[in-house]
């Protein structure tokens, strides 16, 4: 599996689709046979994963939005993407 770096361009795997749970209003990622409920941060990260944007550009886009420490946010992004890559829900293009 390809390691995710600042230059990686992540995208949702085919069949994975962002949606909102009508019951709770919370964001989620739907895929064949399953669902992952997402935190606000994870949702914001995945919304940027279009296969074009690099991890570092996702980081700069979200740093403003969340008013967060970039070093911490970078770790969050890498951890979130690696976890979902392990579950085959995110791919590196």
């Amino acid at each position, binding site marked *: *599996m390809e390691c995710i770096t600042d230059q990686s361009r992540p995208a949702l*795997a*085919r*069949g994975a*689709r962002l*949606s*909102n*749970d*009508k*019951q709770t209003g919370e964001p*989620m990622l*739907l*895929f*064949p*046979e399953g*669902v992952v409920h997402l935190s606000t941060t994870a949702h914001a990260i995945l919304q940027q994963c279009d296969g074009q944007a690099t991890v570092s550009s996702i980081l700069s886009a979200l740093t403003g939005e969340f008013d967060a420490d970039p070093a911490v946010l970078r770790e969050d992004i890498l951890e979130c993407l690696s976890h979902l890559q*392990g579950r*085959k829900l995110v791919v590196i293009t």
Partner: protein
Amino acid sequence: MNYRPYLLLAELTHRCPLHCPYCSNPSSYPGGDELSTADWRRVIGEAAEIGVLHAGFSGGEPLQRSDLNELVSAARDAGLYSNLITSAIGLSQSRAEELKKAGLDCVQISFQADEPSLADRIAGATAHARKLEAARMVSKLGFPLTINVVLHRANIGRLEHLIGLAEELSAERLELANTQYYGWAYRNRGLLLPTREQITQADRIAQTAKARLAGKMEILFVTPDYYSERPKPCMNGWGRRFMTVNPIGDVLPCPTASEIRGLAFDNVRTRSLSWIWNESESFNRFRGTEWMPEPCRGCEFREVDFGGCRCQAALITGQPGVTDPACSLSPYREKLVAFVQSCQQPQAPDPALESALNAVAFRQNPLDAP
């Protein structure tokens, strides 16, 4: 405990071009007309309102319904993730493209074997070559592809080749599901149940392939609970996460629940899905743990396996409300063990296959199918 349906299995029709003897459709079909397009659209909308996230379009063969596109579209509009569970017979390129456009999310294609003549004999139809073609086309259109193979005595010896086939077709997911003995499969179970040795060997092959293909293709190997000490957590609990609507509109807590004689099911033509989920006798009958007899009632696993499968208890003991005989603690365990013992004659693969395929009851279609 909270009860919320996450998955709606929409069995659109019992009509099917295949005649697989392991089918878990009921071997006596319920009488009545199939639901109309308008009925299904309403059901799909109501399902989304009560919490459903996934809709599985199944059957029979869902492609036999000419309104499938419209129903997929309704699922998409309702925010549901849709899966087409198909034999692939009838899945032309143009039909697949239309389904894609309507918002279909993923496709699951069944295969009977890796090798055409065996596959077609099991299916009771000329199907294998068309399935291969459809699987390649589906992938090319960008659908995630799941290959599902129901395993039994006649094909379990081909497991390595079956895994190879799924790799060759670039499937994202391979379900190697040992036959569940309900409906037609129950009727044929003496001919379908693999020997213990076959299961052990298949499990080894599946685990090795799982490790080898990790990160590339997900492999699910479901062992038959006839060989297990603990029952399966059927439906993750009765009326807890799952609902089936059958072709005539009866709503079932599990796809094979019509095996339970004496349990009446409410119909979407006369009741809302919400009422049926929350209030109906059928959905509440085995919900939670209150209904449980001993040894389930006092068992530490009662909320792990939920007492196993009600349909299996009904089929094997005649009583749906007792512990599933797949549990080693069941007072009726002996019935299952005796049956399993009777299936252990060591047979060379070929004679076993021949005798099985000569004697099984191939699945028939409903006589009154429109």
